[in-house]
């Protein structure tokens, strides 16, 4: 499965996201300053963010959220951290040590290579397209990768699992701040990574994501990660997402675990 996964990365390297011909992005677009007015849902009020979205081939945060060097399977780049200004994750010393160990072991230990769910925010930043579906009660994010689903509850006000249960993709509550969809995610397990470079977190991670349409086919995405066990202060990433503009957009299946079996059985 490792081969299959990294093979795909190579594809992405060479051709940009295969099949997704997109304009070059403007990194770190400031969402709040967008003057674009997104189309509305049928209540004439709620912004309509539905569609198939992805980071594009220029974005390097799937390799590392941080400013980083190249490495085997790692394209160099500035990642997507806008705060702190040095573009690095504000790890505790132990947190950094663990990241470095993870990096060395990445070919074997990356949960994505094992076909595990990505967690948040890698669900969005990991390079796999996802589709947004909106109803007043729920916003669903469906990923191409292993048919992952995120349920964003728009009416529930309280997190209800903290300290009791945790999930690969956490427990997400959403609300609108103007035209920005704000998603607050807790109850994350400690088993996911943030990228291919072993950047990590504990089960104390809390993520606040902000989705804001900036044009018909682009959306600003920021995420602030707080984890007092692993980081000395919160940090924020900022990425531009691109919408598939095909006449008939189609989220497909990347069934990682099935490909691993096919490979193992020589098919």
């Amino acid at each position, binding site marked *: 499965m490792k081969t299959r996964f990294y093979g795909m990365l190579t594809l992405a390297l060479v051709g940009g996201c295969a099949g997704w011909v997109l304009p070059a992005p403007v990194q770190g677009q400031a969402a709040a300053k967008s003057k674009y007015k997104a189309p509305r849902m*049928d209540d004439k009020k709620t912004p309509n963010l*539905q569609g198939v979205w992805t980071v594009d081939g220029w974005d390097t945060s799937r390799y590392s959220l941080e400013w980083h060097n190249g490495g085997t399977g790692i394209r160099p780049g500035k990642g997507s951290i806008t705060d702190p200004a040095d573009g690095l994750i504000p790890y505790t010393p132990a947190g950094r040590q663990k990241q470095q160990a993870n990096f060395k072991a990445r070919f074997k230990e990356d949960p994505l290579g094992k076909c595990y769910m990505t967690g948040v925010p890698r669900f969005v930043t990991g390079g796999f397209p996802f589709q947004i579906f909106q109803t007043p009660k729920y916003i669903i994010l469906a990923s191409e990768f292993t048919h992952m*689903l995120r349920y964003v*509850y728009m009416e529930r006000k309280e997190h209800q699992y903290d300290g009791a249960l945790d*999930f*690969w993709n956490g427990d997400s509550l959403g609300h609108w701040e103007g035209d920005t969809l704000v998603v607050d995610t807790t109850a994350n397990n400690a088993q996911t990574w943030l990228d291919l470079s072993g950047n990590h977190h504990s089960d104390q991670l809390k993520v606040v994501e902000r989705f804001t349409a900036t044009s018909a086919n682009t959306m600003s995405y920021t995420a602030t990660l707080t984890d007092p066990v692993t980081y000395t202060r919160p940090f924020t990433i900022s990425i531009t997402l691109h919408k598939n503009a095909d006449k008939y957009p*189609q989220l497909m299946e990347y069934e990682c*675990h099935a490909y691993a079996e096919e490979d193992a059985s020589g098919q």
Partner: protein
Amino acid sequence: MNKNKFLGSMMAVAAATVAVAIFVMGPLPMTGQQAPAKGVPAVAADKGGGKGKDATPPGPVPRLKNGKPDMNGYWGPVAPGGNVNIEPAQAKGGGAPGGAKGGGKGGPGGAPGGPGGAPGGAPVAGGPGAGKGAGKGGPGGAPAAVAGGAGPGGAPGGGAPGGAGAAKGKQKGVIIDPEDARVPYTAAARAKSDEIIAKRMFLEPELHCFMSGVPHNMWVQFNSQIVHTADNLVIMWEFMHSRRIIPTDGRPHQFPGQVRQFQGESSGKWEGDTLVVTTKNQTDHTWFDTSGHYAPKDIEVVERFTMINANQISYEATVTSPTELTQPMKLSGMISRANMNDPTYEQMEFACIEGNQDLSHYTETAGGKAKEIGVLKQ
């Protein structure tokens, strides 16, 4: 959350075991709530058994803003279904006779669910399965809900089985044509299915955390949530977070022949109030059930979803295969609204791949045997 740590340890045994295992995980809040409870419309039980005296009639079909039927909400599996065995229990060479028999007693099995949420046991697991149980499934619904509360006993065993078939009193399973309710395999395809049942049950797709494909996914054990927008009908099952994304814009199918997906490529269009969904380009990795009745790779499935009231969707499907079925296979059942007794109900995360110890069992520790026999080759 890794529910499958538990499930994983059970997986190696047999397909039927999976169904049992899932219900043993009862204390989790996803099961046992689809049968109507006291004080809420006992739609399924009423339809199924005709005994729901205090049932209030379900309301009219709700509508989206665009006027189409609004299917948003939580739903049970198609019933009668075919998860344990799509064919009647006496089918020759049935790989999971235990499961099939369980299906026969599915409805009544709901009751032992008990107030404590104790597992309803094997018989319940067979609820939506074919066989005698389907026709008698209805009566199980109410007892499961009342006696079992939120217990797991009521899940597919109760409530939902009361469907079109039960109402007609003749239908034995989800297959209504051919009349013998068996998959109309060609002789060669039947031999292949028999061979899988006899020797290769390790291919059972759910053991591998594979999405079940169409139509099988419509009757998997757990409930589903439908998110229905103006452009798409998305069915999301709690089981393995399987999903189907069905565009309802009547788009042409786009996949060339070699492009295959577990859930195929679906395109839906409205014919009046009926959503007609055509699905092509599925893989050769899925079955119609968990008992070895494999789905030919070239099947084309036309499904018809018709909401008949606020709480029921009539489901029909026609499965054709030019190479391995001798005639179109017609299916019919009812999808009933679930979790009506809990307005705060939410589906939880079912991590299958993440806890599945059997993947390595099949592909590595089998000492090359997997390669020799071709784990996935049906």
